[in-house]
């Protein structure tokens, strides 16, 4: 029943408006023309329900047509045009900035890779640098660095450490992590990064011994408990810490944002 009320309201309003306009008209010479248009509007209102049935997009069409006629008259469209141009300019600026940031991060990643390889002698698979564009025109800053070490020699170590772990169970933390094992390897980088960051924070806060710390860090980063135990013993942590050290000294960034990921090949 609401549509009936709406419809009646519309009709009443338009008819009232028409009477009002009739009074407002300046002289009789325009009268016939104005009356034609107003009667058409009233007719449109009267057949609105039928129109909705037969031509559901008629209202939109009407609006478009009116917009077109207003544009062709073309007076008040100047302001919107300026706004449009300004908006486009802003968009282009953002795009350019983003491109620049992307280029910069790629370049930085390349340099970092070289640097790490030279300093540690370990092959680096790739370095991913995330640069955040800061708001209000401040300098963009590096928000995180992921260093992915190449899997090569890790594999043998991995298997070796597996055996070792079978023989002698590790610390309680390792045991706690163990059931998660099947998840490993195919996790997407975001998750990995998030977990890694959390872990680093925890480790730093509790100030544990370096060996233990390495164990946890390695485990989370590698995302496979076996490798975690392995690196914990063998000292993958010194490596990642060394890398973090190099990067933070060479690039002036806090060591917390550096995540070292020790990759394994899928078995």
């Amino acid at each position, binding site marked *: 029943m609401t549509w009936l009320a*709406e419809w009646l309201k*519309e009709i009443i*309003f*338009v008819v009232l408006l028409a009477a009002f306009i009739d009074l407002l008209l*300046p002289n009789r010479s*325009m009268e016939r023309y*104005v009356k034609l248009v107003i009667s058409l509007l009233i007719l449109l209102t009267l057949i609105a329900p*039928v129109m909705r049935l037969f031509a559901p997009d008629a209202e939109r069409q009407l609006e478009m*047509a*009116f917009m077109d006629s207003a544009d062709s008259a073309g007076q008040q469209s100047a302001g919107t045009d300026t706004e449009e141009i300004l908006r486009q300019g802003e968009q282009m600026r953002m795009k350019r900035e983003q491109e620049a940031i992307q280029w910069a991060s790629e370049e930085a990643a390349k340099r970092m890779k070289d640097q790490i390889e030279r300093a540690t002698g370990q092959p680096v698979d790739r370095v991913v640098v995330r640069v955040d564009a800061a708001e209000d025109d401040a300098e963009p800053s590096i928000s995180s660095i992921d260093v992915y070490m190449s899997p090569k020699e890790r594999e043998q170590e991995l298997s070796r450490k597996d055996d070792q772990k079978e023989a002698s169970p590790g610390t309680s933390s390792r045991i706690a992590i163990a059931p998660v094992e099947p998840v490993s390897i195919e996790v997407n980088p975001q998750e990995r990064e998030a977990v890694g960051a959390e872990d680093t924070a925890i480790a730093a806060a509790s100030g544990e011994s370096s060996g233990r710390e390495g164990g946890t860090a390695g485990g989370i980063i590698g995302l496979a408990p076996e490798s975690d135990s392995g690196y914990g013993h063998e000292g993958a942590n010194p490596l990642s810490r060394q890398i973090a050290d190099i990067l933070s000294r060479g690039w002036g960034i806090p060591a917390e944002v550096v995540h070292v990921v020790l990759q394994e090949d899928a078995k």
Partner: protein
Amino acid sequence: MEMIQIVGLGLIATILILTIKEQKPMFAFLIAVATGIMIFMYLAGKIGGIIEVLEQLAESSGVQMIYLKTILKIIGIAYIAEFGAQIVRDAGQESIASKIELAGKILIMVLAIPIISIIIETVMKMLPA
């Protein structure tokens, strides 16, 4: 009070024009134009108030704004065409005045075209092909 002001302005302008008309008909015309514009501008604010109320009514009753916009455009065209035509007529150019009125009429008709086309389209859809 406002009415008195407007009538006073009109009377003063009329007297000025009557006195000056013999010597300088050009200035008489300019005074007439200026007075007309002044009164028109003065009324523009009042018309703005009326339009605001109408818009509020339309919004609260849920009528499509496009109807109101169309009608307001019609009034605007009618008033401006009328104003211009009368000034020109005062200056004695009857033919130009009628051309201005013609332009006003045609522009009003242009506003009707989308409405007509939509109605005809709907009717054509309703009829069996």
